[in-house]
């Protein structure tokens, strides 16, 4: 590596006028028989919901392909509006702004080859994005996973989604420990 990188800056509070798009959280359509729902809240170090965070998700297709596909923001050529994925090809990319309660919801298909979905977190007050992973508990062997097996149990637990009911998982993100709840494990890539 030779060139010095361009520094990051916070996404600020006003990304909502540009980045979210219709169906951003529907990597898979709700009617798909294999669709799973992952949802939760983003919290700050006081335990309060963060209402201006943006989450992005990236994952392999169910067949394990990591090539992705264009069309997450497929557009209507007449109006320019986003009309959403055609769901024939699996784009693997989702983008969801949290609501006023700090809550997000993602619908997708389980990834092939790995037990996790990658998450990139942006928020006002956060000067560079944070990475974490949603591990799906029914597909995860914590002892066999290179990341999970390297973590102590209380840290590991922050990466494991909690099954709520059939095909619905809860995954909260804590940007900072609040004294009661464990801070989410965030990742660095070097």
């Amino acid at each position, binding site marked *: *590596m*030779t*060139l*010095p*990188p*361009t*520094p*990051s*800056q*916070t*996404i*600020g*509070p*006003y*990304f909502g*006028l*540009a*980045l979210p798009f219709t169906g951003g959280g529907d990597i898979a359509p709700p009617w798909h028989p294999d669709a799973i729902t992952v949802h939760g809240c983003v919290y*700050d*170090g006081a335990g*309060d919901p963060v209402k201006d965070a943006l989450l992005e998700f*990236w994952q392999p297709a169910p067949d394990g392909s*990591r090539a*992705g*596909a*264009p*069309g*997450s*923001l497929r*557009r209507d050529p007449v109006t*320019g509006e986003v009309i959403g994925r055609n769901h024939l090809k699996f*784009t*693997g*990319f989702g983008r969801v702004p949290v609501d006023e309660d700090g809550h997000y919801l993602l619908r997708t298909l389980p*990834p092939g080859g790995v037990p996790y979905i*990658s998450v*990139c977190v942006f*928020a*006002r*007050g*956060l*000067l*560079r994005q*944070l*990475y974490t992973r949603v591990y799906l508990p029914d597909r995860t062997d914590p002892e066999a996973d*290179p*990341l999970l097996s*390297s*973590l102590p149990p209380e*840290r590991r637990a922050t990466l494991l989604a909690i099954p709520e009911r059939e095909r619905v998982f809860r995954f909260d993100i804590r*940007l*900072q*420990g609040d004294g009661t709840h464990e*801070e989410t*494990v*965030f*990742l*660095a*890539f*070097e």
Partner: protein
Amino acid sequence: MLPTQEAINEEIAEIHRTYAKSVAEGAPRRDHPLLDFPPYRGSVLRHPKQRLVVPRDPEAVELTGPVFGETDVTELDSDLTRQHPGEPIGERIIVTGRIVDRNGRPVRGQLVEIWQANAAGRYAHQWEQHPAPLDPNFTGYGRCLTDDDGRYTFITIKPGPYPWRNNTNAWRPAHIHFSIFGTAFTQRLVTQMYFPGDPLLPFDPIYQSIPDEDARRRLIATYDHDLSRPEWALGFRWDIVLDGPDATYMEEGR
């Protein structure tokens, strides 16, 4: 009670002094902001206190990333002055540059998104209510795909500075927000482009959250007279280098 600008300036100067001292003593330079940067009050409860974990995993999914194509953008997206029936008020500008990775390889066919305030310094967002006019002919967001050379180009109007409540009499320097995808999810970049000669830069805790002066300057665009078009628009050039490994980088085993 909000701190004064003077108090914020002192906090910034102290952090910069500490950084300069550590570099002088042999610590590595830092390219990115400090996540914990108290002069930017919004960062205090929103940064992790635990160490980031490096997954030692050459098969990590994050070494690949999402792709976009012609279906994800329309031709009008990159011209923010043509999204409404009339023309926006303000100084028309052209903003262009190349996006490369740290090895200098162009990032081709990837999505670049921008958003900004209007010429009066007002965002078209309902949380933003300071007394500056909205412009019915300006929303302030744009998208494009980079070309084969990694180049992006937007036509927009120069955003105004705007007040915020970090401290008393706090004003953000004029800036354009950028969101950029590389070839890997690890290379994702959200940042802000600033304008040369802006007198507000020294006072801004977000800009100053990057403790390294050379790194900070990389966020300032260059006025390029050859880019300006006579009787139409002023040209600014801003090249971007994405940080972070990708799958090819890992394969080469460096």
